[in-house]
């Protein structure tokens, strides 16, 4: 009974908070914040049920639920998760309360609307990861876009409108293509022998791989473009620095932490299983773009003058790793990609929180405005260091596990068939140390500013609430770094089956190739 509806409950629970907020006086700021925080916290607790009841040794989807929706078109309200979706849902439900707690006093205007937007956003995000019907997926995907647009556009920085529209248009362009592709896919499948129009992922998964290569190619391209913009894969990334820098802190945390993952999630969930042959055909291009993104993002990140922009560009580099891992089509790479999605959500989310905390105090994010902050904010500086080290992939912390698996996967991949990808990507590890430590040095180390004044403000160390929100993240940073099996175990089967599928196709192609050449 509970198992049937648990996904729906997790997705829609934030509505409870929305409902309460609708009847709350907008002047009562503390109450509004409390309702928002407690609702998201409760959602997290609910989602823990998924964690404990999930059976990692069972292949396929769990907590399945289906209801008729648009009968004529065979579109259903269909939910279910596998190990990857489980991890991403937990990341979402975890990061949302953390973001709210960490930015408790950052929002001063229209607090009620803001909190409602965050709650609506959470509904969309969890829905995206749980949807097993492409149409439903699309609905959630778009539904999530709208609150994000408002969060950037209303509560953002000085350039917020430009950034919000840019974010919206970029994503919309991609998602409209995806909508067309979803409809086209349903139609093409219906023309196959015994086929009907459907948007059910499980049905499509059985049919779509049989599509001719050319059709697969077009479908893949439409989906891939949409996801690539979201990730963002170089060169579709320019919306990201603007959106991140302008968004309020909690928006940045969620944007970096969860929204970017929808792109990479989309690749793994839809592109690879539905269009395996096309995925292999497109593999070289995406891998090259991924490697370019890794190096390019790191280099551009290195020379930023705004801390937040630096973190934003570093996302381009980190997500490049994830894409490279996916398209290595190895178990190591796939597992690495999945865990790296979680890692990036934690580390970069925490980095944005940290940047927000210092911005709330000094009202500047220019690196040159700081220096020697460690002297005035020792606890903050320590947490900043731990998170930075996690982000630059220090062994023993989470980032290393993902990067290592991805790089070793790319190195041995029979598909990429060259260690060059991995070698170039590995230089990203050096540059990550450069941009993070250089920034850390210029902000935190060196002599303290005269009188401890920064931008005319005497800084105070992070308070208990802020430390709690960061400590929650640090726990997972260390946990994943030391004992990643807890999390890798959940997604192991997903990776294994997917890679098996790609491997079968490659072997099949090889066999055909050999036969072909012997006949000639």
């Amino acid at each position, binding site marked *: 009974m509970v198992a049937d509806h648990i996904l729906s409950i997790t997705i829609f629970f934030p509505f409870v908070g929305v409902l309460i907020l609708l009847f709350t006086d907008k002047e009562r700021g503390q109450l509004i914040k409390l309702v928002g925080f407690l609702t998201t916290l409760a959602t997290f607790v609910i989602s823990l049920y998924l964690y404990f009841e999930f059976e990692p040794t069972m292949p396929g989807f769990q907590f399945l639920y289906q209801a008729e929706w648009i009968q004529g078109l065979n579109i259903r309200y269909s939910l279910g998760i596998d190990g990857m979706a489980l991890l991403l849902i937990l990341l979402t439900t975890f990061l949302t309360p953390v973001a709210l707690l960490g930015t408790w006093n950052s929002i001063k205007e229209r607090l009620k609307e803001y909190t409602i937007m965050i709650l609506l956003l959470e509904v969309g995000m969890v829905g995206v990861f749980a949807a097993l019907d492409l149409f439903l997926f699309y609905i959630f995907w778009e539904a999530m876009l709208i609150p994000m647009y408002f969060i950037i556009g209303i509560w953002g920085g000085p350039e917020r409108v430009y950034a919000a529209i*840019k974010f919206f*248009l*970029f994503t919309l362009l991609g998602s409209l293509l995806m909508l067309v592709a979803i409809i086209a896919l349903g139609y093409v499948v219906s023309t196959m022998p015994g086929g009907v129009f459907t948007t059910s992922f499980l049905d499509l998964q059985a049919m779509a791989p049989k599509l001719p290569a050319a059709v697969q190619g077009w479908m893949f391209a439409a989906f891939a473009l949409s996801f690539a913009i979201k990730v963002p894969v170089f*060169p579709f*990334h*320019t*919306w990201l620095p603007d959106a991140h820098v302008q968004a309020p802190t909690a928006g940045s945390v969620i944007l970096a932490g969860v929204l970017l993952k929808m792109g990479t999630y989309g690749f793994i969930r839809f592109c690879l299983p539905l269009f395996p042959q096309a995925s292999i055909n497109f593999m070289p291009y995406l891998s090259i773009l991924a490697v370019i993104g890794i190096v*390019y993002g790191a*280099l*551009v990140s*290195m*020379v*930023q003058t705004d801390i937040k922009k630096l973190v934003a560009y570093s996302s381009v580099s980190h997500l490049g790793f994830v894409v490279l891992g996916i398209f290595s089509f190895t*178990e*190591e790479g796939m*597992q690495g990609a999945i865990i790296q999605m979680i890692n990036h959500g934690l580390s970069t989310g925490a980095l944005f929180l940290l940047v927000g905390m210092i911005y709330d105090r000094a009202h500047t994010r220019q690196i040159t405005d700081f220096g*020697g902050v*460690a*002297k005035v904010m020792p606890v903050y500086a320590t947490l900043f260091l731990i998170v930075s*080290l996690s982000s630059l992939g*220090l*062994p*023993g912390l989470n980032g*290393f*596990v993902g990067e*290592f*698996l991805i*790089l*070793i996967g790319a*190195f*041995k991949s029979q598909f990429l068939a060259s*260690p060059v990808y*991995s*070698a170039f990507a*590995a*230089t990203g*590890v*050096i540059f990550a*140390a*450069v941009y993070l*430590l*250089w920034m850390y*040095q210029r902000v935190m*180390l*060196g*002599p*303290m500013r005269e009188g401890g004044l920064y931008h005319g403000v005497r800084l105070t160390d992070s308070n208990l609430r802020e430390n709690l929100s960061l400590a929650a993240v640090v726990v997972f940073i260390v946990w994943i770094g*030391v*004992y*990643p*099996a807890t999390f*890798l*175990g959940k997604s*192991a089967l997903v*990776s*294994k089956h997917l*890679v098996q599928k790609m491997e079968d196709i490659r072997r099949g192609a090889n066999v055909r190739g050999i036969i072909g050449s012997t006949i000639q």
Partner: protein
Amino acid sequence: MSPFPFTPLIVLFPLLGFGVLGLMGWRFKANEKLIGIIGSGSVGLSFVFSTVIFIHMLGLDVAERKAVVELFPWISTFSGTAATLSVSVAYQIDQLSILMALIVTGVGFLIHVYSIGYMHGDPGFWRFFAYLNLFIFAMLNLVLADNFLLMFLGWEGVGLCSYLLIGFWYDRKFDVGGYPPGKATTSDAAKKAFIVNRVGDVGFLLGMFLIFTTFGSLNFETVFSRAAVLTIDSATMTWLTLLLFLGATGKSAQIPLHIWLPDAMAGPTPVSALIHAATMVTAGVYMVARCSVLFAMAPAALAVVAAVGAFTALMAASIGLVQNDIKKVLAYSTVSQLGYMFLAMGVAAFAAGMFHVLTHAFFKALLFLGSGAVIHAMHDEQDIQKMGGLKEHLPTTYKTFLIGAIAIAGIPPFAGFFSKDEILWKTFSGDYGSVGLWFVGLFGAGLTAFYMFRLVYLTFDGEPRYGHDKHPHEAPKTMTVPLIILAFLSVVGGFVGIPESLSGGNAIEHWLEPVFAPAILKLRITPHAVVALEYVLMALSVGVALAGIWTARKIYVYREEVWRSMTDRLTGLYRLLWNKYYVDEAYDAVVVRPTVKVSESFLWKVFDVSGIDGVVNGTATLVARVADGLRKIQTGVAQMYAVVFVAGIVMILLWIVFR
């Protein structure tokens, strides 16, 4: 059941120390005694356990001296296929790892005790000990790991601690190579160390990947046993070992990645002694020794290792001749001595190289701690030109420092003589050595003796050259007792490796024999009989060392005007050495500045903002323009619409008629 079930405890104690001090140290930060006891005690316990295991090993058969204790799986993929990644947190005891563990915990313990005195009164006292404990933890992971990945954890972990400790006084000014004078702080040195190390680490990482694809595992036992029986094409093995060696050059400050170590002297002196002399920097040597069988499959790589080692030894020694900062001289000396160790590895004298790791840990830790006592006495003065005559005021420091200097110069029967001579002899006589390399080594030995005694004489001999405001005084007991112990070890430490030719048993070589046997077998090395030539060479290297000492004495004790004029004029070779061959400047001009410049002026501001985003915004502007144009058509003037309407009809009719 492993014969050494308590192995993980060795690693655990320092971690506990770090946890207690790191999380709660600030609560009792005024209680230096308690902090000192926790910090030193945790390492002391590790030393005790290491010693117990070592003694236990002595009583066992050679075949039983190796065991692994597995704690828990770390990074694994779960498929059933052959090349599955499966790495555990597991610690291995064997002859090599216990040797390293003893050095790390033993010398580490002494330096912890010394730090109690040295860091007295520092507001970051608790933080310092927390970092030191973390370092010992990481270093023990490095040497006790039973697989490459856990070793890499330790490898980067010690790099982190090095970063934290070099920049311990992160607001102090410090001249760093590659930065304009007076502009850099210790945090620049720290960052430089970490990043240069990362370059090497990527080599290590890629080498590790190649090991995984070649041998299907990252576990030492599996990899090495497969390597012993497999034949693998030499190109793969050369790549593999050279990548690993790139990692080693980073950690052990060899050319071309040696530039960070002299700047690492920005850290407190106990850090220089522990991390940048006795233990961490020898990690690269240990790694090559651990992978000896892999290197044995790539003789070309061995030749590179030997050449890099010899060349580094000579280059660093030559720079050491002219430096005036007491710690910088020792730093270049360390780079140079590490070069000797790599020379040994390169000529397949693995045991001799490890022997030098051991003796070097004693005398170099001693010298650094001695320099710390001097700096302490001189109120943070490090320029030896402003010292002189200190032997009167610091008798214990002087005597122990002198012992260290004699040891490193290679005068028998002090520790350095045996290990260095072993290396030189193996270089000369070994199947993979050469006379040329031997000569470089010998020449470097002469330089070593010279710069060491230059240091001794300028610091301790002659007239005082410092102002009357300074009143040098001997260091407290917590500092002098470690000095005395290390001095004792620097005298007798070499006795574990007295060669057969001097009727010694060369105990350390025999002890390590099982570890290096597969490599020696691969390389088809046969033991040499003792020949008369060995005595000749031995006499020669002692002669060279004595000549170096004699020259230094001549110049720096009796002829002040000579060295004064050399330092003042800074011409030709002297200037080249003084500026460390301009390597920092070259890297800065060729690598650092162009990368930043291109990233900033081109990639970001042109390519990203104007290029990609320009296209994006350009599209938007284009759409807006077109829409703007189209808008103008819609004038609302009905007559105009009628005209267009008629024109359209006419055109359609024309088309129908004439098509």
